[in-house]
């Protein structure tokens, strides 16, 4: 993202924030608060990940007053969130005094300041939400909070929209595993984690038996290359269960699935290696997760590329094949491609060399079809 138009002191702090924030933070609505644009852009909205969702905070700098620290406008629902200490307010804890120190000692030339401020405020926001959830008059919720609070890293959020019923949302990080370390040559910048989102409706006192909360598994986005949480079937929430009972089962099952996913990388790698004797060395292959490989092949004088796309469910799910001609171009200017081919003989029980042979045989025939397809729709010059 290019940040032209920001005065240097804002640009430096914003870049540092984006590059060093522990998760993905987004910036939108970049505007200038000056009468004309000559002063530069000095206000923007940050989308800060919190509780598996985003909170929107507006950061207001003043390009005319570079020495002053920025001001922040919080979300519409958070009118009671006051992170700054009151004068003479004692016993307000360390959190407020850290924010205080950052702001009262603001150095606009120091690029790390904005990140420090946002992290501190986010921590305070977390404890503010925790206090608000603690105030909810619901026995089951209170029980859950008490039994869960020993787990680290839980974020909670209470939504108080006037049109929606009140809900309390928990984001529980699952499994203490360092998945990044388990992948050889892992390219991920941030640690990948899986979370369980648990949503409790609040305030429905007339229900005799408390209904099960809504559960959803979520993960950081880059994990998809290794393991897709959509494939995970959540164990069912039995009546009268609580989080402290449910979570260990889920974590055990998930751990097994993640370990299996990691072992599948190797199997995919061996499959790609098994293709090499038949197709030649791959033109391109994904070396870390082994999800893709592309080979150059020829059928007579027809030269084409064969793309192999392996899902995380390989070998249970067969690879998707796609052929791309190197000699035909579509009217739009792109090389002609075949549709995705997924219907061909396959069995996950074959060993990798047999898989490679069967695919090879299939492609020998299919390439003739593809050649015909390319030639048919080719305009004659």
């Amino acid at each position: 993202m290019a940040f032209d138009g920001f005065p240097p002191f804002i640009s430096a702090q914003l870049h540092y924030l984006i590059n060093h924030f522990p998760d993905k933070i987004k910036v939108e609505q970049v505007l200038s608060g000056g009468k004309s644009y000559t002063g530069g852009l000095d206000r923007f909205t940050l989308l800060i990940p919190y509780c598996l969702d985003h909170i929107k905070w507006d950061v207001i700098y003043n390009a005319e007053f570079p020495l002053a620290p920025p001001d922040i406008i919080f979300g519409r629902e958070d009118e009671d969130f006051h992170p700054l200490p009151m004068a003479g307010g004692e016993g307000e804890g360390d959190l407020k005094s850290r924010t205080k120190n950052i702001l009262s000692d603001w150095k606009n030339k120091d690029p790390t300041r904005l990140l420090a401020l946002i992290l501190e405020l986010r921590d305070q926001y977390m404890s503010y939400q925790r206090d608000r959830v603690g105030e909810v008059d619901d026995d089951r919720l209170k029980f859950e909070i008490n039994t869960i609070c020993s787990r680290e890293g839980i974020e909670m959020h209470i939504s108080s929209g006037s049109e929606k019923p009140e809900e309390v949302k928990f984001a529980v990080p699952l499994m203490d595993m360092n998945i990044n370390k388990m992948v050889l040559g892992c390219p991920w910048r941030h640690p990948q984690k899986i979370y369980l989102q648990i949503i409790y409706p609040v305030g429905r006192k007339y229900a005799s038996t408390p209904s099960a909360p809504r559960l959803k598994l979520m993960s950081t986005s880059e994990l998809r290359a290794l393991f897709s949480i959509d494939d995970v079937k959540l164990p069912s929430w039995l009546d009268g269960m609580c989080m402290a009972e449910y979570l260990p089962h889920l974590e055990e099952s998930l751990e097994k699935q993640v370990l299996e996913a990691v072992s599948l990388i190797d199997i995919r790698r061996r499959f790609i290696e098994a293709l090499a004797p038949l197709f030649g060395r791959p033109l391109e292959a994904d070396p870390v997760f082994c999800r893709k490989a592309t080979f150059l092949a020829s059928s007579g004088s027809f030269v084409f590329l064969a793309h192999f796309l392996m899902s995380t469910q390989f070998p249970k799910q067969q690879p998707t094949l796609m052929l791309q001609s190197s000699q035909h171009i579509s009217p739009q200017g792109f090389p002609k491609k075949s549709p995705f081919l997924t219907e061909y003989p396959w069995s996950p029980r074959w060993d990798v060399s047999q898989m490679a042979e069967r695919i090879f045989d299939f492609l020998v025939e299919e390439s003739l079809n593809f050649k015909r397809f390319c030639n048919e729709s080719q305009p004659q010059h």
Partner: protein
Amino acid sequence: MDDLLLQKIAISGPTLASMIQRFSSSPADVDGLLFGHVTYIAPSTLSDDSQSPSDSQLVATISSFLSFPSLLSFYDSLGQVDSSRLTPTHLNHKPFIGWFSSRRKTPLRPSMRESSVSRSLSCIPNLSLPIENANFNSLFAPSIFLLFTTPVQDQSIQTNQYRAFQLQSSKRCFNPVSMDIVNIGPAFRGHYGSFRPSSSLPFLNCELRSLTPMNEDRNEGKLIGMKQTTKDQSQLDMCTEGMQIGRLSRLIGPEAVSYTSGLEDLYEKMLSKIESLARLVEASSAKVLEQENHNRKLRYKVGRSA
């Protein structure tokens, strides 16, 4: 202590227009102080079915403002107000009822620092002012916050938004308060009482007896009389220009037959005084602008040298 909740805030059209003009002509965000008074007003509607006596409304009136040329003027980066900057001498002994902040292209709700400033203001002792028409001695702390912004989207139309809040110090939250704009005109006659002049005519001692033609010469001869006349003249010169104090005698006593022309004369001279004051203000504003531009250039140098 119970919170005194305002029912509404009244502001005169020129004051609001002046604030908006200050906001839109300023190169950056602007904030400042609000002055006025707070009073109980008995509701004007009387209904025949008297169920419960309706309470008188607590209404604040904003009559003037003072804007600061830079941010962090009377508060620091944490929003803590520096009470030494808000002493009565600093405020020119004007009744202080709140503050305002204006920032372009931001949402119309108080920010982190603004909340902190408002709360800090309401905690400073000795800044409260007495409420008029009250049944008992009650004080009003400066808890009004007026926010001006421009919309974040839709910049094709020039729009200025404003909202007034009162800080409820017991709950530490902002209550929006509706604002009434009061202008001159038949519909607003009831409000004339709430906007008293900031510069009223001075009290001048006049005795009817001494203004008969017989005694006039005798009075002007006395030294004490002359000193008093000079003093009175200088007081009159504060609000009029070129008005001789002797001419005021046309408004009372036997000379009052030409009351109308005397009054017109007085108003004419007051207007010319206002004109010359306006010219003075223009000249000094030009100097202030020059100084502000100079300051801005210095700040640019600081900002660019990263």
